Structure formats: structure tokens, C-alpha cells
């Protein structure tokens, strides 16, 4: 196994790891807030559940990036490619956008969605506004995912 392949695998692992940590934190925070509302008014469960799901997407983006990268370097499928150190670094760097932006955006999306749970608790008819506010944060995770995918598919092997 070359240094290049190790670096590429490290990049894939980071994408899944950091984005996953961010999502776990975000979903956990909204879950706490949601549980607070449901403990008082169980009928609001379905409304707060949507908010709780939102910060979970970054973890999925990280997973997607990791799978695409592992497939591109042949770990999944035809067998590991012989990557140079420069190619390895390139894959590692390609994973960074979704790894870092995924981590941070999931935490902030969790905070926004937890605040949105407060809207649902007091004014359930305005639940959609809380969802939209939290969804705005998602934009940056999607942009980061896009950059990571473009980089992964444009590295020459």
C-alpha cells in the first residue's frame, strides 16, 4: 500500500467522521429541545421531529463523499489503485470541504433548529418558519459537498 492510498483513505475517513460528529451533536441538541416540548405536549412530536432530522443530513453527505472517494480509488470494487503521494494529498484535500463545513454547519443547524423547536412549542402554526430558518444553514453543507464531489471526480489517477 502506497503513501498516496493511505492519505486518500484518511481523507475519506475524515469526511465521514467529522461530518458525522457534527450531525450527532446537532441532532442531539435538537432532540433535547424536542423532548422538552413533547414532555409537555406529546401532540407536537411529528412537528419537532422534522426539525430534529435537519442537522442529520451533514452526516449523510460525509458518508456519501467517503463512499464516492473509496469507489474512485478502487477500495470499493476493482482493488486499490496505486496512488502517488501527490494524488493521495489531492484526495485528502478533496474531502476537507465536506468534513469541516459538515462539522460546523451541523452544529449551527442544530442550534437554529433547537431554537425553531421553541417556535413550534409556542406557535405550532408557524412551525414552517423554524424549518426554513434551519434549512438555510444547509446551503453551505450542500456547497461543500458539491466542491468535494467535483474535486474527487477531477483528480487524475
Amino acid at each position, binding site marked *: 500500500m502506497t503513501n498516496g492510498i493511505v492519505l486518500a483513505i484518511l481523507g475519506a475517513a475524515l469526511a465521514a467522521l467529522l461530518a458525522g460528529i457534527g450531525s450527532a451533536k446537532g441532532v442531539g441538541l435538537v432532540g433535547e429541545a424536542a*423532548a*422538552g416540548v413533547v414532555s*409537555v405536549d406529546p401532540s407536537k412530536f411529528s412537528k419537532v421531529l422534522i426539525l430534529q432530522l435537519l442537522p442529520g443530513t451533514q452526516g449523510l453527505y460525509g458518508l456519501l463523499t467517503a463512499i464516492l472517494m473509496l469507489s474512485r480509488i478502487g477500495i470499493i470494487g476493482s482493488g486499490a489503485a496505486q496512488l502517488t503521494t501527490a494524488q493521495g494529498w489531492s484526495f485528502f484535500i478533496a474531502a476537507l470541504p465536506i468534513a469541516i463545513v459538515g462539522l460546523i454547519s451541523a452544529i449551527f443547524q442544530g*442550534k437554529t433548529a*433547537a*431554537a425553531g*423547536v*421553541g417556535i413550534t*412549542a409556542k406557535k405550532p402554526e408557524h412551525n414552517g418558519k423554524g424549518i426554513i430558518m434551519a434549512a438555510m444553514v444547509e446551503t453551505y453543507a450542500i456547497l461543500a459537498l458539491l466542491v468535494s464531489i467535483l474535486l474527487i471526480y477531477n483528480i487524475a489517477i
Partner: protein
Amino acid sequence: MGTMKYANAVAAVRAMETFLMSRNDIEQLINANSGTELENLIASKRGTGNGEFTMESVWDMLKGYAPDCKELEILLYKNDFHNLKAALKSKIAGREPENFYIRPTNLDLDALYPAISAKEYDVLPEYIRSTAEEAYDLLTRTLDGQLADSLIDTAAMRAMQQAAEKYGGNFMKKYVQLITDCADIKTAYRCSKMKKNINFLEMAVCGSCELDKELLVRAAVSGTEGLMSFLENTAYADAAKLLAASPAQFEKWCDDVIMELAETARMQAFGSEPLAAYYIAAEAELKNIRILSVCKETGSDKETITERMRKLYV
């Protein structure tokens, strides 16, 4: 992430706030024709299955969601020191203190009276310990209940100030400052009316960053007019005018200014402030219902009742 640990509690409180009375609800209560109609309206607003709405139930709920929040305990210091007074006076009068206690409280009420009786002050929380000892000595030495009350009331304010400095954020510090200033103004006004001497005032007034103790005491000693002209140059100029017109209006102003502070926490998504604000809101609501019930019993007209209603949180 410090304030994030109250995400669960704040969300629960937001849901609980929907059961608080709105201005429309209070207007409906004011228009109720009988005590029974009043009770029915209150019960319908509370909903079924929510249990009894008392300060004790509100406190239990808040502590259930935020058990380690020392900042919230400051809200009960007034009750704690009142309970100390009750235990001390019951001890002197040889009565059972149970009926004079206020709940909720941070104190273990089962241990309070025996601790006072046996002079075992170590059982009590640190913030009340020295006051209990001092007040007991003062009361047994002088048998002057008013003096002991003043000592305990001032100690309560000081304990709140110290706890707010130690555990509290800006919200709690402001709350304590408002509580202290309102109490000090009332004390200074009564003392100036009763022509109390400077030594008594020095003991009875606490002072704060907004209202300098020394200046307030000097103003109160100089008489009611001197006190009013002093207050006119402070942030409490409007309150002073109300106090001169009617102490009841001043009381309402104090409650309303605290509610205005609580309203600032309504926009906060996290932190202990919304929890404290909910407690203050519940306190105001129960006070309004008490005033309403008394007014209905005494046959007061709707205008008088409306005038006396405190500001609401919802």
C-alpha cells in the same frame, strides 16, 4: 455551549407558556359574574391533566428540567428568608411554624425549626446561616420583631446580590437590582413617614449599584420631601411620583418593571433566562388571580380591577 444545556428546559418552558393567561383571558376573568364562573374560566384555560398550577408546581417543573441551575435558586431567596422569619418568630412565640411557611423554598423546612431551636445553624445553607444566628440573638435580646424583620430583609437582599454576582448572568443581576431597589425605596419611604432614626435606616436599607445606600438613607432621614427630591434625580423618578400618590400604584409599578425585564428573555432561545422569566410570569399570573378573587369578593368595579392587574408575560 454553556447555555445549550438548558435547550430541553427552555423548549419545555416554551410549551408551558401556552398555558399562561393572555390579556384576553384576564379580560374574560374580569368580566366573570361570580366566583364560580371565575374558577371555571381559570380551569378551562389550564386544561385538563396539567395538575394544580401553584408556585410549588412551577418550581418543581423548572428544577426537574434544570436540576443543577444555581442561578434559579436566587428566585427563592425571598421565600427562604421569609421562612427564617417564620421559624424564629414561632420559636419565640412557642407556636408551630408550619402554617407560616411559604413554598417553594431552597430550605429543608423539616430541619429549619429544629435547627433554630437547637441553635444548630450549620444545618442551614451558608447564605442564611449568619443571618439566622444574628436575628435569633437580636430577637431574644430585644423582642423587637420589626428590628429582626428589617435585619432579615436586608440580609435577603444582600444574599441575592452576592449569589447573582457568583452564579447569575446579566438578567439575574438586573432582576436582583430591581427587587433590591424597589424594596429599598419602600423601606426608605415608610421610615421617612415614621421618622425612623439613621441607625435603623442603615440597617434596613441594602443599596445597589443604581441606588446608593448612603444617599438614600440621608434622604430618608431628611423626611419624605427630601426622599422624593432625591428619587427624582435617579432612574426611579416615575416610581417616586407613583409612591407619593399611592403605595399600591408603586407596588404595581415594581411588579410591572420586573415583568418588563422578564419579557426580554422571551426572545432568547437558550440559557437560564427563559426559565427564570417563566417563574416570574407564573408569580405575576397567580398574583393577578389573587387580586381578581379578592376584588370579586369585595365587589370592586371592573375599572378598579383592570387598574390593579399586573403586566402579563404572554
